[in-house]
């Protein structure tokens, strides 16, 4: 490869790199949320209570803006990316369904929104056959902080992921063998 070509490649890479959005990127892990239960890979029984603690800073923000900051809990699915809205997941064209940013529509997609640091998962799919060939029912919960934006025209909630930190826990559901 000639020196000229190498310079061109490096220039292209530099341009590509400069196109990346760097603001809001986290280079260190921040414990804004600490998941308190269940523990990592803990064996649990249904229903599963997921609890977490916000950091003092986050707790202050929530106290100052009640309803403006919420928790988004994503069960067995990837969360939305930083800056994305929940509406991106359910689809923006919700006419005819009376608005689809309701709790039920989100829950159907493995998404829960909570104002308090806990969530009871009463119903989880049995993943033993689908996910883990060795017969364990492993589930993953990812929690992110959501910020409420202006109300949307369709009446739904404009909830946007606030930053790129996320908190994940995997646990194993022990089920009684079906007869």
């Amino acid at each position, binding site marked *: *490869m000639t020196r000229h070509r190498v310079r061109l490649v*490096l220039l292209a890479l530099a341009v590509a790199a400069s196109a990346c959005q760097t603001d809001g990127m986290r*280079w260190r892990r921040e414990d804004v949320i600490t998941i308190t239960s269940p523990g990592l890979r803990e064996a649990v029984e249904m229903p599963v209570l997921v609890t977490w603690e916000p950091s003092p800073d986050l707790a202050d923000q929530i106290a100052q803006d009640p309803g403006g900051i919420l928790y988004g809990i994503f069960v067995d699915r990837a969360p939305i990316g930083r800056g994305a809205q929940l509406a991106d997941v359910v689809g923006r064209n919700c006419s005819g369904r009376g608005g689809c940013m309701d709790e039920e529509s989100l829950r159907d997609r493995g998404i829960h929104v909570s104002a308090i640091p806990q969530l009871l998962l009463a119903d989880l799919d049995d993943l033993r056959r689908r996910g883990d060939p060795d017969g364990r029912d492993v589930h993953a919960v990812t929690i992110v902080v959501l910020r409420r934006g202006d109300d949307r025209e369709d009446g739904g909630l404009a909830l946007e992921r606030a930053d790129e*930190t996320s908190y994940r826990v995997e646990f194993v559901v022990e089920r009684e063998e079906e007869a």
Partner: protein
Amino acid sequence: MNSEARRFLTGPAERGGVGEAVRRGGAYGLFALCALAAIHQLQVVAVLALGPEIGSTLGAGAGTFSFAVAAHAVGLHLGMLRFATIAESQPIRAAITARSAVIWSFLTLVTSFASSGSAVIAAMFAAGFARGSVKALHLPLLMDTYDVRIRGRLFGMWTAAEASAIPIAAAVVGVAWSTGGASWRGVLVVCGVVSLGVVATAERLRDPGFGAPDHALLRAAVDGGADGPAIGEETILGAAEVRRRLTLMPSFRALLLAYGLLGVFLIPFNAFMLAYLDRRFGLILVGRVVALGLMWIPAIGAALAAGRWLDREAPGDVGRPIAMAAKAVAVAGAAIAVGALVAVRPITFALFSVGLASIAVVFPLVQLPLLTIIQPRQRPQALAILHTTMTLAGGLGGLVILGGVDRRIGIAGALATLIVPALLASRALSKAAPLVESDLDNLLLDVAEDERLKRHRAAGERIPLLRCQGINFAYDQVQVLFDVDFTVDDGEMVALLGTNGAGKSTLLRVISGLGLPSRGSLHFRGEEITYLDAERRVEAGVVQIPGGRAVFPPLSVLENLRVYGFAFDRDKKAVERGIEATFGALPRLYERRNQPAATLSGGEQQMLALAKAFILRPRLLLIDELSLGLAPVIVGELLEMVRRINASGTAVVLVEQSVNVALSVVDHAYFMERGQIRFDGKASDLLGRPDLLRSVFLEGAQAGRAQARAGA
């Protein structure tokens, strides 16, 4: 000479001191290449370890990161093939190595800024492509830089460095994540910075040129002294020519199969082992990567030991290391199968470590003998093809199969079943071992012949225009030519005679490049052309007129002539000049210039075919069955044309069944029977060999009787 050269090439029995030999070649090159090999996995390991974290940040599913790792593997092998191709023609391997390392390090840094899953995939693919230089170019560079006597240890050291890549990457990722509190972006920044820091030390790498140590030793072996003239410029093959040349080697074909089976064994093992550590022992994220790193540590020592063994035990015997590698693969398969089934953490870890250590020794044990029997320029291609076969053919197949097994019987059972491809790969390696020996002999014969011709030329001695030596050729499993020696001098007209099916036309195909020999060498004007494409041979001056009517029937005479010209010369004016010269010499073709070739008589069609010689002006013209089916008067006219072509300086090989026709125009004749040259001498002497000619006459007489019966 052979035993001498073999001893030199495969390393003399006396063991050289590694320190002194490395200093002679410059310790920097070894250090730099090992350093690059040791840190080239940082990005991959970081993404493997932190995939779920990255996914949570970017809103991408777990599948995205499996795809990113797969994209990296595809990029890696495309890069290997590309770099191997670039590095064939010029000694720029060191420059490629150093600069591509800067690129993959920079891309590691860039990955930390990714804002989407697709950006991570793109960065991984590009970095994989750049990393192709590591596997394709490092070992050939080491071979060309250092003394043959320490090659085993060099391979061992480099493989140890490569085996340390996972532990080093696991340590960097583990420290940055656990101790440093870095996010996945922070971990990738650390990896990128570490990587850039190390690759900066490789900037002063210099390419030593192709095969200097091998050439010096072979020169010594040919003449018994190393003070002869340097071996001249070798023929540089294109990528496709190299691939064809390699796949003609029985040992390479056998090793391709072995690598494919190794891929079925190794690639799924690497992929499923992480899942196994998770499911059986609850190790996730960085924890399982650190466990993987710890398991790789014994492989470092094993690779070093394999290198020492190669230098101590294997000199002069290129098959033995491959046979040893076969045993190592079987051990690896057994250790992994038992380890997976036991599922007791310390025992499983210990057995997996044994498996990984056994795998680590396989590569130096196979690659050193293999690369020894391959010409220096072609070594990167050989490595690229083998690794690509292993990963993309064997590996992908293995992943699909093992995925199915996993779903049926679980991951432990799936890992245990890997013993099947391991044993098959072991068997394939055992079969390849003896083939390497015979391919080494073939290489030495070719090199010695090449060297002899170059020495003659350097000394101003006359060398033949064409020299075919020891040619074997087979159509699939049916061997047609057996150890054929055939020589044509400059300006000479030679007859190649023989019965039907004797191999005359096949020999012409081998000379013109339409068929490649399974053994032996061809030199044209002193340059080796054994594996050159037919097109390049035409450019070099070898033109064949095939048997039958070698014209394009629907095209006019003029169009036929233009096709000959434009096929190999884009200069329109030169083509038109050639056509004018043809029409000047062959007025009958001028009269028929606008007629379709199909409407010409048999003699005119042959005349048109011969006109190729006027357009292309070859140094060597190969004419197959000129007189077939033509009246004697026409044959006489055509022979007159051939005489004129020959008189203008073109050497001619005339393949004929008609002894009378052939011997009337040549002084030198060859006679072939059942794929062998039975006579090589003056044409007049052949006429005195009724034992040979009888078969032709008898065949001719039988054909005549058959014709007569048909007429009646």
